[in-house]
């Protein structure tokens, strides 16, 4: 049986090709909305004065939240909100179904409200198992003001053919 997706040299050549940067914003309202979304009641995500009293710059982003990509209907996906930007890999993946395969975040600093992050990403891995294609992208998030890398994230999506 033919594979639902073939890892050709052309596909391999796209590994590591960087996307154009995109701005991710971390604001007091976005941190609170995310914290509400996960049902957290920890005041470190809601109360600016409390967070400062604990030594943080502002309210702390819950783990897993790396900001909201700056959205415009011309440049971002209407459903997922992520940017359809220049550069990066272009794969003709099967789209009968789409599932989340895994998420991994490496932190080099806390992310707090008021931070603006600049993210770039690249294709890191593609694996085919039966009718499933596992696609892993790696993102690097830098603090826009300091240039410091604050987080790296590996996202695996499963495309069903």
């Amino acid at each position: 049986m033919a594979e639902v997706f073939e890892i050709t040299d052309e596909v391999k050549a796209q590994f590591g090709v960087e996307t154009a940067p995109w701005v991710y914003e971390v604001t007091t309202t976005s941190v609170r909305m995310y914290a509400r979304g996960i049902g957290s009641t920890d005041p470190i995500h809601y109360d600016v004065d409390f967070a400062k009293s604990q030594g943080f710059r502002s309210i702390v982003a819950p783990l897993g939240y790396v900001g909201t990509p700056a959205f415009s209907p011309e440049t971002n996906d209407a459903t997922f909100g992520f940017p359809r930007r220049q550069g990066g890999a272009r794969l003709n993946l099967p789209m009968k179904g789409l599932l989340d395969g895994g998420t991994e975040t490496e932190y080099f600093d806390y992310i707090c409200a008021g931070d603006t992050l600049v993210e770039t990403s690249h294709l890191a891995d593609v694996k085919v198992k039966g009718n499933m294609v596992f696609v892993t992208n790696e993102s690097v998030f830098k603090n826009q003001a300091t240039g410091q890398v604050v987080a790296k994230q590996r996202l695996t999506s499963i495309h069903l053919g």
Partner: protein
Amino acid sequence: MTQAQNSVVTDEMRAAIGVEGSPATLEVEKTNCRMFARAVGHTDPIYYDEAAAKARGHRSIVAPPGFFGTPIFRPGAPPQGPTGGRGFNIPYKRVLNGGTDYEYFPDEDSVCAGDTITARTKITAFEETEGRLGPMLITKRETTYTNQRGKVVAKMYGTVIQY
């Protein structure tokens, strides 16, 4: 206001007319302006793109019509301001939003990302009618939005129907 025979308007409610509730702080940010604009389906870039907004003479991304920021949320905290008559012991089960009108008083600029708005709400009237759905209580509310420079930038006139 004439007193209906089976009026549900109590002395406590009458005393609440014109009394401002505790102020609510609303934060206007780029992210929540874009989210609101995305939800409505706006296409004007002044609601999404700071550079486009500045090119049109605004300080930053503009708050779309009807948006004055997101109230500061704290889990378990009581809602800020009067709740449009829902706080009183009204013998009606159903609540409808009757309508909303906005009036703008432009400052040197529209409401933009970076602004902090204070919203103060008061009940302006209770009206009772007998409609198709039976007896109704109509609560009229007015919310005043003041920006961080102390300027009133807008008012909202809202109607809540209980029956």
